[in-house]
Protein backbone atom coordinates (compact mmCIF):
# COMPACT_ATOMS: atom_id res chain seq x y z
CA UNK A 1 0.00 0.00 0.00
CA UNK A 2 2.59 2.58 1.06
CA UNK A 3 5.03 1.37 -1.57
CA UNK A 4 2.50 1.85 -4.35
CA UNK A 5 1.66 5.30 -3.03
CA UNK A 6 5.32 6.36 -2.95
CA UNK A 7 5.92 4.95 -6.42
CA UNK A 8 2.92 6.82 -7.75
CA UNK A 9 4.19 10.04 -6.21
CA UNK A 10 7.59 9.45 -7.79
CA UNK A 11 6.13 8.91 -11.25
CA UNK A 12 3.97 12.00 -10.92
CA UNK A 13 6.97 14.15 -9.99
CA UNK A 14 8.94 12.82 -12.95
CA UNK A 15 6.06 13.59 -15.27
CA UNK A 16 5.73 17.13 -13.93
CA UNK A 17 9.46 17.66 -14.46
CA UNK A 18 9.14 16.36 -18.00
CA UNK A 19 6.31 18.78 -18.68
CA UNK A 20 8.18 21.78 -17.37
CA UNK A 21 11.32 20.78 -19.28
CA UNK A 22 12.38 21.64 -22.82
CA UNK A 23 11.31 19.00 -25.33
CA UNK A 24 14.02 18.78 -27.97
CA UNK A 25 13.51 15.21 -29.12
CA UNK A 26 9.97 13.91 -29.51
CA UNK A 27 6.86 15.12 -27.74
CA UNK A 28 7.14 15.95 -24.06
CA UNK A 29 3.37 15.53 -23.72
CA UNK A 30 3.51 11.90 -24.81
CA UNK A 31 6.34 11.11 -22.42
CA UNK A 32 4.63 12.93 -19.56
CA UNK A 33 1.39 11.08 -20.29
CA UNK A 34 3.20 7.74 -20.12
CA UNK A 35 4.70 8.62 -16.76
CA UNK A 36 1.38 9.93 -15.47
CA UNK A 37 -0.24 6.68 -16.55
CA UNK A 38 2.24 4.67 -14.50
CA UNK A 39 1.60 6.96 -11.55
CA UNK A 40 -2.17 6.64 -11.84
CA UNK A 41 -1.83 2.88 -12.00
CA UNK A 42 0.18 2.90 -8.78
CA UNK A 43 -2.42 5.05 -7.05
CA UNK A 44 -5.13 2.63 -8.12
CA UNK A 45 -3.14 -0.24 -6.63
CA UNK A 46 -2.86 1.80 -3.44
CA UNK A 47 -6.65 2.33 -3.58
CA UNK A 48 -6.18 6.09 -3.42
CA UNK A 49 -8.98 6.87 -5.84
CA UNK A 50 -8.90 10.64 -5.57
CA UNK A 51 -5.22 10.89 -6.48
CA UNK A 52 -5.66 8.38 -9.30
CA UNK A 53 -8.58 10.37 -10.72
CA UNK A 54 -6.65 13.63 -10.55
CA UNK A 55 -3.71 12.06 -12.36
CA UNK A 56 -6.01 10.73 -15.09
CA UNK A 57 -7.34 14.26 -15.59
CA UNK A 58 -3.73 15.38 -16.05
CA UNK A 59 -3.21 12.60 -18.60
CA UNK A 60 -6.25 13.85 -20.50
CA UNK A 61 -4.85 17.38 -20.50
CA UNK A 62 -1.51 16.09 -21.84
CA UNK A 63 -3.22 14.24 -24.67
CA UNK A 64 -5.32 17.30 -25.49
CA UNK A 65 -2.15 19.39 -25.83
CA UNK A 66 -0.67 16.65 -28.00
CA UNK A 67 -3.86 16.65 -30.10
CA UNK A 68 -4.79 13.03 -29.36
CA UNK A 69 -8.50 13.33 -28.69
CA UNK A 70 -9.23 9.61 -28.50
CA UNK A 71 -6.59 9.03 -25.83
CA UNK A 72 -7.82 12.07 -23.92
CA UNK A 73 -11.38 10.74 -23.96
CA UNK A 74 -10.20 7.34 -22.76
CA UNK A 75 -8.32 9.03 -19.92
CA UNK A 76 -11.49 10.89 -18.92
CA UNK A 77 -13.35 7.58 -18.86
CA UNK A 78 -10.71 6.10 -16.58
CA UNK A 79 -10.95 9.15 -14.33
CA UNK A 80 -14.71 8.70 -14.17
CA UNK A 81 -14.27 5.07 -13.13
CA UNK A 82 -12.14 6.24 -10.21
CA UNK A 83 -14.50 9.07 -9.29
CA UNK A 84 -17.45 6.65 -9.18
CA UNK A 85 -15.95 5.15 -6.05
CA UNK A 86 -16.47 8.28 -3.98
CA UNK A 87 -18.03 11.15 -5.96
CA UNK A 88 -20.66 10.40 -8.62
CA UNK A 89 -21.04 14.07 -9.50
CA UNK A 90 -17.42 14.38 -10.57
CA UNK A 91 -17.66 11.06 -12.38
CA UNK A 92 -20.55 12.45 -14.42
CA UNK A 93 -18.55 15.58 -15.25
CA UNK A 94 -15.54 13.56 -16.41
CA UNK A 95 -17.76 11.34 -18.56
CA UNK A 96 -19.36 14.46 -20.00
CA UNK A 97 -15.95 15.66 -21.17
CA UNK A 98 -15.28 12.24 -22.68
CA UNK A 99 -18.62 12.39 -24.52
CA UNK A 100 -17.79 15.82 -25.96
CA UNK A 101 -14.45 14.54 -27.26
CA UNK A 102 -15.98 11.40 -28.77
CA UNK A 103 -18.54 13.57 -30.54
CA UNK A 104 -15.76 15.76 -31.93
CA UNK A 105 -13.92 12.81 -33.48
CA UNK A 106 -17.15 11.24 -34.74
CA UNK A 107 -17.33 8.20 -32.48
CA UNK A 108 -21.07 8.46 -31.92
CA UNK A 109 -21.35 4.88 -30.71
CA UNK A 110 -19.02 5.38 -27.77
CA UNK A 111 -20.45 8.82 -27.05
CA UNK A 112 -23.92 7.27 -26.85
CA UNK A 113 -22.75 4.57 -24.46
CA UNK A 114 -21.07 6.98 -22.04
CA UNK A 115 -23.98 9.40 -22.31
CA UNK A 116 -26.18 6.55 -21.10
CA UNK A 117 -23.76 5.97 -18.22
CA UNK A 118 -24.06 9.63 -17.21
CA UNK A 119 -27.84 9.36 -17.26
CA UNK A 120 -27.73 6.29 -15.04
CA UNK A 121 -25.39 8.02 -12.58
CA UNK A 122 -27.78 10.95 -12.23
CA UNK A 123 -30.74 8.59 -11.95
CA UNK A 124 -28.99 6.80 -9.11
CA UNK A 125 -28.36 10.16 -7.48
CA UNK A 126 -32.11 10.85 -7.87
CA UNK A 127 -31.57 13.88 -10.10
CA UNK A 128 -34.33 12.98 -12.54
CA UNK A 129 -34.13 16.09 -14.72
CA UNK A 130 -30.48 15.64 -15.60
CA UNK A 131 -30.89 11.89 -15.95
CA UNK A 132 -33.70 12.45 -18.44
CA UNK A 133 -31.67 14.95 -20.47
CA UNK A 134 -28.64 12.69 -20.81
CA UNK A 135 -30.68 9.57 -21.54
CA UNK A 136 -32.55 11.43 -24.29
CA UNK A 137 -29.26 12.54 -25.79
CA UNK A 138 -28.00 8.97 -25.63
CA UNK A 139 -31.13 7.63 -27.34
CA UNK A 140 -30.72 10.20 -30.14
CA UNK A 141 -27.11 9.15 -30.67
CA UNK A 142 -28.05 5.46 -30.78
CA UNK A 143 -30.74 6.35 -33.33
CA UNK A 144 -28.10 8.14 -35.40
CA UNK A 145 -26.08 4.93 -35.46
CA UNK A 146 -29.12 2.83 -36.39
CA UNK A 147 -29.28 0.84 -33.15
CA UNK A 148 -33.00 0.99 -32.53
CA UNK A 149 -33.23 -1.70 -29.86
CA UNK A 150 -30.77 0.08 -27.57
CA UNK A 151 -32.46 3.39 -28.34
CA UNK A 152 -35.89 1.99 -27.50
CA UNK A 153 -34.86 0.61 -24.13
CA UNK A 154 -33.34 3.98 -23.21
CA UNK A 155 -36.40 5.83 -24.48
CA UNK A 156 -38.56 3.67 -22.25
CA UNK A 157 -36.50 4.84 -19.28
CA UNK A 158 -36.88 8.44 -20.45
CA UNK A 159 -40.65 7.99 -20.65
CA UNK A 160 -40.80 6.52 -17.15
CA UNK A 161 -38.80 9.44 -15.77
CA UNK A 162 -41.02 11.92 -17.63
CA UNK A 163 -44.09 10.35 -16.03
CA UNK A 164 -42.48 10.57 -12.60
CA UNK A 165 -41.90 14.28 -13.29
CA UNK A 166 -45.61 14.59 -14.22
CA UNK A 167 -44.93 15.19 -17.91
CA UNK A 168 -47.63 12.73 -18.88
CA UNK A 169 -48.20 13.89 -22.45
CA UNK A 170 -44.51 13.53 -23.31
CA UNK A 171 -44.33 10.11 -21.65
CA UNK A 172 -47.45 8.94 -23.49
CA UNK A 173 -46.07 10.04 -26.86
CA UNK A 174 -42.78 8.24 -26.27
CA UNK A 175 -44.52 5.02 -25.23
CA UNK A 176 -46.79 5.11 -28.30
CA UNK A 177 -43.84 5.71 -30.62
CA UNK A 178 -41.97 2.75 -29.10
CA UNK A 179 -45.06 0.54 -29.41
CA UNK A 180 -45.49 1.44 -33.09
CA UNK A 181 -41.88 0.59 -33.76
CA UNK A 182 -41.87 -2.70 -31.85
CA UNK A 183 -45.12 -4.06 -33.28
CA UNK A 184 -43.33 -4.75 -36.57
CA UNK A 185 -40.74 -6.94 -34.86
CA UNK A 186 -41.88 -10.52 -34.34
CA UNK A 187 -39.84 -10.87 -31.18
CA UNK A 188 -40.62 -7.55 -29.54
CA UNK A 189 -44.34 -7.44 -30.28
CA UNK A 190 -45.13 -9.50 -27.19
CA UNK A 191 -44.06 -6.63 -24.97
CA UNK A 192 -46.15 -4.08 -26.85
CA UNK A 193 -49.06 -4.80 -24.48
CA UNK A 194 -46.99 -3.71 -21.50
CA UNK A 195 -45.85 -0.56 -23.27
CA UNK A 196 -49.40 0.35 -24.27
CA UNK A 197 -50.49 -0.23 -20.68
CA UNK A 198 -47.82 2.21 -19.53
CA UNK A 199 -49.02 4.73 -22.11
CA UNK A 200 -52.61 4.27 -20.93
CA UNK A 201 -51.63 4.80 -17.31
CA UNK A 202 -50.03 8.10 -18.29
CA UNK A 203 -53.29 9.15 -19.92
CA UNK A 204 -55.21 8.18 -16.79
CA UNK A 205 -52.97 10.45 -14.75
CA UNK A 206 -53.86 13.35 -17.01
CA UNK A 207 -57.49 12.84 -16.01
CA UNK A 208 -59.02 13.59 -19.42
CA UNK A 209 -61.65 10.92 -20.15
CA UNK A 210 -62.10 11.87 -23.81
CA UNK A 211 -58.34 11.68 -24.38
CA UNK A 212 -58.30 8.26 -22.71
CA UNK A 213 -61.00 6.94 -25.01
CA UNK A 214 -59.26 8.30 -28.10
CA UNK A 215 -55.97 6.84 -26.92
CA UNK A 216 -57.46 3.39 -26.46
CA UNK A 217 -58.83 3.49 -30.01
CA UNK A 218 -55.34 4.45 -31.19
CA UNK A 219 -53.86 1.54 -29.24
CA UNK A 220 -56.18 -0.88 -31.03
CA UNK A 221 -54.97 0.55 -34.33
CA UNK A 222 -51.38 -0.01 -33.25
CA UNK A 223 -51.97 -3.56 -32.00
CA UNK A 224 -55.17 -5.32 -33.19
CA UNK A 225 -54.83 -8.01 -30.50
CA UNK A 226 -54.67 -5.47 -27.68
CA UNK A 227 -58.45 -5.39 -27.16
CA UNK A 228 -58.41 -9.02 -26.04
CA UNK A 229 -55.78 -8.61 -23.35
CA UNK A 230 -56.09 -8.11 -19.61
CA UNK A 231 -54.21 -4.83 -19.96
CA UNK A 232 -56.97 -3.48 -22.19
CA UNK A 233 -59.61 -4.69 -19.74
CA UNK A 234 -57.85 -2.92 -16.88
CA UNK A 235 -57.56 0.32 -18.83
CA UNK A 236 -61.20 0.26 -19.94
CA UNK A 237 -62.40 -0.49 -16.40
CA UNK A 238 -60.29 2.31 -15.00
CA UNK A 239 -61.52 4.71 -17.68
CA UNK A 240 -65.14 3.80 -16.92
CA UNK A 241 -64.56 4.24 -13.19
CA UNK A 242 -62.94 7.60 -13.84
CA UNK A 243 -65.82 8.71 -16.03
CA UNK A 244 -68.32 7.76 -13.33
CA UNK A 245 -66.14 9.17 -10.57
CA UNK A 246 -66.27 5.88 -8.66
CA UNK A 247 -63.18 5.33 -6.48
CA UNK A 248 -64.32 1.92 -5.24
CA UNK A 249 -64.74 0.63 -8.78
CA UNK A 250 -61.32 2.04 -9.64
CA UNK A 251 -59.77 0.19 -6.72
CA UNK A 252 -61.59 -3.06 -7.54
CA UNK A 253 -60.27 -3.06 -11.11
CA UNK A 254 -56.70 -2.51 -9.92
CA UNK A 255 -57.05 -5.19 -7.27
CA UNK A 256 -58.26 -7.74 -9.78
CA UNK A 257 -55.33 -7.02 -12.08
CA UNK A 258 -52.85 -6.96 -9.21
CA UNK A 259 -54.02 -10.34 -7.92
CA UNK A 260 -52.71 -11.96 -11.08
CA UNK A 261 -49.87 -9.68 -12.17
CA UNK A 262 -48.07 -7.84 -9.42
CA UNK A 263 -47.82 -4.13 -10.22
CA UNK A 264 -44.30 -2.72 -10.28
CA UNK A 265 -43.43 0.37 -8.19
CA UNK A 266 -43.65 2.73 -11.17
CA UNK A 267 -47.21 1.67 -12.03
CA UNK A 268 -48.14 1.72 -8.36
CA UNK A 269 -46.94 5.30 -7.99
CA UNK A 270 -48.80 6.57 -11.04
CA UNK A 271 -52.03 4.70 -10.34
CA UNK A 272 -51.96 6.03 -6.80
CA UNK A 273 -51.71 9.55 -8.18
CA UNK A 274 -54.67 8.94 -10.49
CA UNK A 275 -56.69 7.46 -7.64
CA UNK A 276 -55.91 10.39 -5.34
CA UNK A 277 -56.98 12.80 -8.08
CA UNK A 278 -60.23 10.87 -8.53
CA UNK A 279 -60.85 10.82 -4.79
CA UNK A 280 -60.31 14.56 -4.63
CA UNK A 281 -62.83 15.07 -7.42
CA UNK A 282 -65.33 12.83 -5.65
CA UNK A 283 -64.92 14.77 -2.42
CA UNK A 284 -65.50 18.02 -4.32
CA UNK A 285 -68.73 16.65 -5.75
CA UNK A 286 -69.87 15.55 -2.30
CA UNK A 287 -69.18 19.04 -1.00
CA UNK A 288 -71.25 20.51 -3.80
CA UNK A 289 -74.08 18.13 -3.01
Amino acid at each position, binding site marked *: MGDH*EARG*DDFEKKAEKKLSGWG*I*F*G*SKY*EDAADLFDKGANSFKL*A*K*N*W*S*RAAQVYIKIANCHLKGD*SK*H*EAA*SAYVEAANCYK*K*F*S*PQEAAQALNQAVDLFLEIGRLNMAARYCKDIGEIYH*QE*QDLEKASDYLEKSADLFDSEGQSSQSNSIKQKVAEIAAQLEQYQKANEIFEAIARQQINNN*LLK*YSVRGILLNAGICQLCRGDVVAITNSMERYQDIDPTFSGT*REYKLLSDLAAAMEEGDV*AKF*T*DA*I*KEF*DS*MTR*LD*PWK*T*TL*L*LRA*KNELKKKEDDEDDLT
Partner: protein
Amino acid sequence: MEASSWDALRKQARRLEAQLDDQMSAYRKLISMKSDGSENDIESDIERSLKQLQQVNSQMQTWVSSGGSEVLSHTLTRHMEILQDLTQEFYRLRSSLRAKQQHASLLDLRDFDRAKFDVEEGADSDQALLKEQAAISRSTGQMDTVISQAQATLGTLMLQRSTFGGITTKISNVSSRLPTINQILSSIKRKKSMDTIILSLVASVCAFLIFIYWMSK
Protein backbone atom coordinates in the same frame (compact mmCIF):
# COMPACT_ATOMS: atom_id res chain seq x y z
CA MET B 1 -3.65 23.83 16.08
CA GLU B 2 -4.22 22.43 12.61
CA ALA B 3 -3.21 18.95 13.69
CA SER B 4 -5.78 18.94 16.47
CA SER B 5 -8.32 20.38 14.03
CA TRP B 6 -7.73 17.47 11.67
CA ASP B 7 -8.02 14.97 14.50
CA ALA B 8 -11.23 16.62 15.68
CA LEU B 9 -12.71 16.45 12.17
CA ARG B 10 -11.72 12.83 11.81
CA LYS B 11 -13.20 11.92 15.18
CA GLN B 12 -16.41 13.71 14.25
CA ALA B 13 -16.58 11.85 10.94
CA ARG B 14 -16.09 8.52 12.69
CA ARG B 15 -18.79 9.34 15.24
CA LEU B 16 -21.23 10.32 12.49
CA GLU B 17 -20.49 7.12 10.58
CA ALA B 18 -21.17 4.98 13.65
CA GLN B 19 -24.36 6.94 14.32
CA LEU B 20 -25.48 6.41 10.73
CA ASP B 21 -24.86 2.68 11.01
CA ASP B 22 -27.18 2.54 14.02
CA GLN B 23 -29.83 4.64 12.32
CA MET B 24 -29.69 2.50 9.19
CA SER B 25 -30.14 -0.66 11.26
CA ALA B 26 -33.18 0.84 12.98
CA TYR B 27 -34.58 1.95 9.63
CA ARG B 28 -34.09 -1.50 8.12
CA LYS B 29 -35.80 -3.14 11.07
CA LEU B 30 -38.65 -0.67 10.80
CA ILE B 31 -39.19 -1.49 7.15
CA SER B 32 -39.38 -5.22 7.80
CA MET B 33 -41.76 -4.73 10.75
CA LYS B 34 -44.25 -2.73 8.65
CA SER B 35 -45.08 -0.35 11.47
CA ASP B 36 -46.44 3.07 10.59
CA GLY B 37 -45.76 6.59 11.74
CA SER B 38 -42.19 6.79 12.98
CA GLU B 39 -40.36 6.15 9.71
CA ASN B 40 -40.55 9.85 8.82
CA ASP B 41 -38.65 10.76 11.98
CA ILE B 42 -35.91 8.23 11.30
CA GLU B 43 -35.68 9.34 7.69
CA SER B 44 -35.17 12.98 8.61
CA ASP B 45 -32.61 11.95 11.24
CA ILE B 46 -30.66 9.97 8.66
CA GLU B 47 -30.83 12.81 6.15
CA ARG B 48 -29.53 15.26 8.74
CA SER B 49 -26.66 12.95 9.68
CA LEU B 50 -25.74 12.44 6.01
CA LYS B 51 -25.68 16.21 5.51
CA GLN B 52 -23.46 16.70 8.55
CA LEU B 53 -21.10 13.99 7.34
CA GLN B 54 -20.99 15.68 3.94
CA GLN B 55 -20.03 18.97 5.60
CA VAL B 56 -17.32 17.32 7.69
CA ASN B 57 -15.92 15.69 4.54
CA SER B 58 -15.92 19.09 2.81
CA GLN B 59 -13.95 20.59 5.69
CA MET B 60 -11.50 17.70 5.55
CA GLN B 61 -11.20 18.25 1.80
CA THR B 62 -10.39 21.91 2.38
CA TRP B 63 -7.79 20.93 4.96
CA VAL B 64 -6.14 18.43 2.61
CA SER B 65 -6.17 20.86 -0.33
CA SER B 66 -4.25 23.41 1.74
CA GLY B 67 -1.17 21.28 2.14
CA GLY B 68 -2.10 17.92 3.58
CA SER B 69 0.05 14.85 3.00
CA GLU B 70 -0.75 11.75 0.96
CA VAL B 71 -1.76 9.73 3.99
CA LEU B 72 -4.42 12.30 4.86
CA SER B 73 -5.59 12.36 1.25
CA HIS B 74 -5.98 8.60 1.35
CA THR B 75 -7.94 8.78 4.59
CA LEU B 76 -10.21 11.44 3.13
CA THR B 77 -10.93 9.30 0.09
CA ARG B 78 -11.90 6.44 2.37
CA HIS B 79 -14.35 8.65 4.24
CA MET B 80 -15.87 9.85 1.00
CA GLU B 81 -16.35 6.24 -0.10
CA ILE B 82 -18.15 5.47 3.15
CA LEU B 83 -20.43 8.49 2.70
CA GLN B 84 -21.21 7.36 -0.84
CA ASP B 85 -22.08 3.83 0.29
CA LEU B 86 -24.31 5.07 3.10
CA THR B 87 -26.13 7.46 0.79
CA GLN B 88 -26.84 4.78 -1.80
CA GLU B 89 -28.01 2.36 0.89
CA PHE B 90 -30.38 4.97 2.28
CA TYR B 91 -31.81 5.74 -1.15
CA ARG B 92 -32.39 2.06 -1.80
CA LEU B 93 -34.12 1.42 1.52
CA ARG B 94 -36.28 4.51 1.17
CA SER B 95 -37.33 3.53 -2.34
CA SER B 96 -38.38 0.07 -1.23
CA LEU B 97 -40.35 1.52 1.70
CA ARG B 98 -42.09 4.01 -0.58
CA ALA B 99 -43.01 1.22 -3.00
CA LYS B 100 -44.57 -0.86 -0.23
CA GLN B 101 -46.49 2.09 1.17
CA GLN B 102 -47.83 3.12 -2.21
CA HIS B 103 -48.88 -0.41 -3.06
CA ALA B 104 -50.76 -0.76 0.23
CA SER B 105 -52.31 2.67 -0.21
CA LEU B 106 -53.46 1.88 -3.73
CA LEU B 107 -55.34 -1.23 -2.53
CA ASP B 108 -56.36 0.04 0.89
CA LEU B 109 -60.10 -0.72 0.64
CA ARG B 110 -59.56 -4.45 1.07
CA ASP B 111 -61.50 -4.83 4.33
CA PHE B 112 -64.50 -2.85 3.12
CA ASP B 113 -64.66 -4.87 -0.09
CA ARG B 114 -64.42 -8.13 1.81
CA ALA B 115 -67.48 -7.19 3.87
CA LYS B 116 -69.31 -6.27 0.70
CA PHE B 117 -68.29 -9.55 -0.88
CA ASP B 118 -69.61 -11.49 2.12
CA VAL B 119 -73.00 -9.83 1.75
CA GLU B 120 -73.17 -10.70 -1.95
CA GLU B 121 -72.07 -14.24 -1.30
CA GLY B 122 -74.84 -14.69 1.23
CA ALA B 123 -77.37 -13.51 -1.32
CA ASP B 124 -76.61 -15.88 -4.19
CA SER B 125 -73.69 -18.23 -3.57
CA ASP B 126 -74.28 -20.61 -6.50
CA GLN B 127 -74.13 -17.89 -9.13
CA ALA B 128 -71.05 -16.42 -7.50
CA LEU B 129 -69.32 -19.80 -7.64
CA LEU B 130 -70.17 -20.19 -11.33
CA LYS B 131 -68.78 -16.75 -12.10
CA GLU B 132 -65.64 -17.56 -10.19
CA GLN B 133 -65.18 -20.81 -12.11
CA ALA B 134 -65.54 -18.99 -15.43
CA ALA B 135 -63.00 -16.41 -14.32
CA ILE B 136 -60.57 -19.13 -13.30
CA SER B 137 -60.93 -20.84 -16.68
CA ARG B 138 -60.20 -17.62 -18.53
CA SER B 139 -57.22 -16.99 -16.28
CA THR B 140 -55.83 -20.46 -16.95
CA GLY B 141 -56.13 -19.90 -20.69
CA GLN B 142 -54.36 -16.59 -20.46
CA MET B 143 -51.62 -18.12 -18.35
CA ASP B 144 -51.04 -20.78 -20.99
CA THR B 145 -50.75 -18.07 -23.61
CA VAL B 146 -48.27 -16.14 -21.51
CA ILE B 147 -46.19 -19.24 -20.83
CA SER B 148 -45.95 -20.13 -24.51
CA GLN B 149 -44.91 -16.58 -25.33
CA ALA B 150 -42.30 -16.71 -22.59
CA GLN B 151 -40.87 -19.96 -23.91
CA ALA B 152 -40.58 -18.56 -27.43
CA THR B 153 -38.96 -15.44 -26.04
CA LEU B 154 -36.53 -17.50 -23.99
CA GLY B 155 -35.39 -19.47 -27.02
CA THR B 156 -34.84 -16.35 -29.04
CA LEU B 157 -33.03 -14.67 -26.18
CA MET B 158 -30.63 -17.58 -25.82
CA LEU B 159 -29.85 -17.40 -29.53
CA GLN B 160 -29.38 -13.66 -29.20
CA ARG B 161 -27.07 -14.15 -26.25
CA SER B 162 -24.71 -16.41 -28.17
CA THR B 163 -24.70 -13.93 -31.05
CA PHE B 164 -23.88 -11.07 -28.73
CA GLY B 165 -21.18 -13.15 -27.10
CA GLY B 166 -19.46 -13.52 -30.45
CA ILE B 167 -19.91 -9.85 -31.21
CA THR B 168 -18.51 -8.86 -27.84
CA THR B 169 -15.41 -10.96 -28.34
CA LYS B 170 -14.76 -9.45 -31.76
CA ILE B 171 -15.39 -5.92 -30.56
CA SER B 172 -13.03 -6.44 -27.64
CA ASN B 173 -10.30 -7.57 -30.02
CA VAL B 174 -10.83 -4.61 -32.31
CA SER B 175 -10.99 -2.07 -29.50
CA SER B 176 -7.84 -3.48 -27.94
CA ARG B 177 -6.03 -3.21 -31.27
CA LEU B 178 -7.10 0.29 -32.26
CA PRO B 179 -5.39 2.18 -29.42
CA THR B 180 -2.27 0.13 -30.08
CA ILE B 181 -2.35 1.16 -33.74
CA ASN B 182 -2.72 4.78 -32.72
CA GLN B 183 0.19 4.39 -30.36
CA ILE B 184 2.33 2.77 -33.07
CA LEU B 185 1.51 5.55 -35.49
CA SER B 186 2.41 8.24 -32.98
CA SER B 187 5.64 6.44 -32.12
CA ILE B 188 6.51 6.22 -35.81
CA LYS B 189 5.81 9.90 -36.20
CA ARG B 190 7.98 10.69 -33.19
CA LYS B 191 10.90 8.60 -34.47
CA LYS B 192 10.54 10.13 -37.91
CA SER B 193 10.81 13.63 -36.48
CA MET B 194 13.83 12.55 -34.44
CA ASP B 195 15.47 11.13 -37.57
CA THR B 196 14.75 14.33 -39.43
CA ILE B 197 16.35 16.41 -36.70
CA ILE B 198 19.43 14.20 -36.55
CA LEU B 199 19.83 14.27 -40.32
CA SER B 200 19.56 18.06 -40.32
CA LEU B 201 22.19 18.35 -37.62
CA VAL B 202 24.61 16.08 -39.46
CA ALA B 203 24.13 17.98 -42.72
CA SER B 204 24.67 21.33 -41.04
CA VAL B 205 27.81 20.10 -39.27
CA CYS B 206 29.24 18.86 -42.58
CA ALA B 207 28.42 22.14 -44.29
CA PHE B 208 30.11 24.02 -41.46
CA LEU B 209 33.25 21.88 -41.76
CA ILE B 210 33.36 22.44 -45.52
CA PHE B 211 33.08 26.16 -44.90
CA ILE B 212 35.98 26.07 -42.42
CA TYR B 213 38.11 24.09 -44.90
CA TRP B 214 37.33 26.57 -47.67
CA MET B 215 38.26 29.54 -45.50
CA SER B 216 41.60 28.03 -44.44
CA LYS B 217 42.58 27.26 -48.02
